[in-house]
Structure formats: C-alpha cells, structure tokens
C-alpha cells in the first residue's frame, strides 16, 4: 500500500527538486504557478502595508549590507498550495482539510461519511499521521481510495507532500478529497494545503473552551463538526457554550452536531458536503462552457450543440 514519507526537516537542502524546481510540469502546474503566486503576494502586501513598516532599527555593521526582502516566510508552502488549489479546481475536486485534536474522531467520522456517500459521490482520502498507515487501511476498508503520508517528526501536513500524494492518488474528476491532517490543533492552522476550506472537528469529550485555547485553528475553519454528541447525556459538556467560544474566534463559522457512532447529524453534514461539492463542480462547468463558447465562436458556430457540418467530397 502506498505510504509517502514526508521529506524531513532537511527538505530545503536535501530534496533534489526543491529550489526552482519543475514540479510535475506534465500536468499543467507550470501554467498556474505564476498566477497563484501573484495572488498570494498581493494579498500579503496589502496586509502589511498597514503602517507596520518598522524599518530596521539596527545599524548595519561595516562590510554588511541590509537587503530588503519582504517575503512571506511560508511563501514556498503557499506557492505549492496555490498549485494544488489550481490542480483541484481543474478537476472540480472538493478538497477539505480536516483538522482536530488527536482522538476527536476524524477517521471514524470519515469512514461513516464514506459509507453514506457510497454510490453518490466519488471519495478519496489523504491521511496524515506521524507513523503507521492504520488510518489509511480503515479508510480503504470503508470503500474509498486512500494514501497515507507519514510526517515522521513533522506535526502537520504541508502543501508539497499533499501535492505529491494527490497526484499519486489521482482522484476522479468531481471527487470529494478529504485531507485528514495530523491530530494537532496548533500547527496545521498555519499551513495552507490548497484546500477549499478547513473543517475543524471538536468532540464532546474535550473541553468546551478548546476554540479559545486554540483560536487559530477555529478562526481558520469554515465549518465546525461537534462530534460524539451521542455521549452528551453522560457528560457535562455545554454545547451552547462551546459554540459561543467558537463564534468568539470566528463569528462566521458554521456548526453541525454529529455522532459518527449513532449517525446523528450525519445527514446534515452530507448535505453540507453535497452543497459545497455542487458549487465547486458548477464553477468548473461554467469555466468549461465559457471556454467551449470561445472556441465555438472561432469556428463561427454560435449555438451550443449545433453540429459542425463538414461538406463531403471537397
């Protein structure tokens, strides 16, 4: 079974195709590189044009020169994330970055989701864990294609390894791709993988104040799945309080209460997925329609579906 070993922390030096590398030029990545890159940059520049240019207070030592760079520290990751995002868009793949603490029930929720989506939507899963491919095996048993990334000492997935895993997995166009991140509420928040959005899972066996203890993750997520609600009768967990904390760090976050075990709320989660999936596919269909219309106009055909007549014998 395929297991991708994540390149270690020595990546920058060790990896043969790191600096200015041709990242799989055979699938049109190169074409989208610049575009994605520029987008990320203009955004970051806007963010730090807000009067936070502190200048350099220190005197430059004799013989040294200050070189102004102004670059996002994770710009390499962001660049790969942009490539992944374009790759997903081209295939109308809904990619979701699933984040939570260890033990919140990510894999159980995914296996249940895969069973519910069987025959409705193609599903593929990228599994991130420090070690073992146990989770990928569970996903395959549930009926979806899965690939495991072992991050080793790494505490999060990065866009580069996800890009390679996605290529290897090669999900069908129009798939839902779940990227199950390493169980960790801190680090994955900082690493864009090129996903459509992050989905945070919080379980009722955790503290209600997790959203304010780990605000970055909940601020970065569009949907909160409150899992293990079947256990609520046995716990002191206050759902309203937990959701209030989540909305303090992210007023726009959506929330669905689910239980992978009892199946409660799963239908709502499936509805959410199908809604997001339809939107992604529609965007791609519209783009292809526009492209086809442009090509048709080159042939002098205005109406879609009107066949091109070839006069025989000429």
């Amino acid at each position: 079974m395929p297991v991708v070993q994540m390149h270690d922390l020595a990546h920058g030096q060790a990896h043969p195709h790191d600096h200015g590398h041709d990242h799989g030029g055979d699938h049109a990545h190169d074409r989208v590189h610049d575009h994605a890159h520029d987008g990320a940059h203009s955004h970051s520049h806007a963010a730090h044009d807000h009067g936070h240019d502190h200048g350099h207070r220190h005197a430059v030592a004799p013989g040294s020169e200050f070189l102004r760079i102004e670059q996002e520290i994770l710009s390499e990751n962001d660049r790969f994330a942009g490539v992944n995002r374009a790759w997903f868009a081209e295939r109308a793949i809904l990619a979701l970055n699933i984040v939570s603490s260890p033990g919140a029930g990510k894999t159980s929720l995914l296996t249940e989701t895969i069973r519910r989506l069987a025959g409705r939507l193609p599903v593929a899963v990228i599994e991130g864990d420090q070690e073992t491919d146990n989770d990928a095996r569970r996903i395959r048993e549930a009926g979806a294609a899965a690939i495991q990334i072992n991050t080793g000492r790494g505490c999060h997935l990065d866009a580069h390894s996800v890009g390679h895993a996605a290529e290897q997995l090669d999900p069908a166009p129009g798939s839902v791709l779940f990227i199950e991140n390493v169980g960790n509420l801190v680090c994955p928040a900082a690493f864009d993988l090129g996903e459509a959005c992050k989905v945070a899972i919080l379980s009722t066996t955790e503290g209600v104040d997790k959203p304010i203890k780990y605000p970055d993750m909940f601020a970065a997520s569009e949907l909160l799945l409150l899992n293990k609600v079947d256990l609520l009768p046995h716990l002191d967990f206050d759902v309203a309080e937990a959701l209030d904390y989540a909305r303090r760090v992210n007023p726009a976050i959506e929330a669905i209460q689910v239980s992978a075990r009892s199946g409660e709320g799963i239908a709502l989660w499936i509805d959410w997925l199908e809604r997001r999936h339809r939107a992604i596919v529609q965007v791609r269909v519209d783009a292809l329609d526009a492209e086809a219309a442009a090509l048709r106009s080159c042939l002098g055909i205005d109406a879609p579906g009107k066949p091109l007549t070839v006069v025989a014998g000429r």
Partner: protein
Amino acid sequence: MHELTIAKSLIDLSCKHAREQGASRVTRLHIRLGSMSVVLRSLYSCFGPASRGTLCEGAMLEIDEVPLSVHCRRCNATKHPAGRFNFRCPDCGTPTPDVLTGREMQLIGIDLDYTRLDGATAAAPAVPGTARTAAV
C-alpha cells in the same frame, strides 16, 4: 510544533537571497511576526541549531511583533482586542472577524556580509552600508 519548519523556511529563504547577492554570510535576519503566530518565542531557541552549517549560522534574529488589530463593522474603526482569543470589539462587544494585523509571518530583510574568509571583500554591494531591495 512547527517553529522548526518556520526556522527552516526562514533560513532557506535567507540563504537563497544571500547566494544570489554573492554574500559570504547572513549576519542578521529581520522578521515580522503577528501576535497570533504562536511560534514567536520558540523560534529563538530552534533557530541556532537549524542554521548550523548554512550561511545563516551565527546570525542574529530581530523580531518585530505586530499586535492584533481588527476592523469593527459596528464602530467602523480599527480596534485592538485585549486577547488574541477574543475576537470582539473591546468597546462595543460586536464579533469582529476582520483581522487587519496580527497574522504576519514575513521576512523583512537580511544583513549580508561580503567579507570572505581571507579578509577580502567578495563582491562589494553597490553602495556599502545602505539598503537594497531584493527582487522577489
């Protein structure tokens, strides 16, 4: 935690620019970190080990911490919430999802040393002791 990844990215970026400029080493890294970046303090401790054997070995880290500021839609003004875990306007209490500053993680610039080990200057900067801007 991912401070080691951050440190490695910083070092890779800085070394790349230093090589492009023909510098012999990086003596200082000037970075900008928003207060929401949890890596702030731990970056100091892992930078040294991570930079060993690179052009950044022995360089100093200078970190500008950028406070959290948000735009309150109700007050229509920039506000500074007290904690980074409470995204509400400190004055009117309205939830404020529009973060203006506090998420930064940027390399502002680097000090480059052009002195070679034999004491000669490798490739003198255009105007020594002044600032230049890298083509990013």
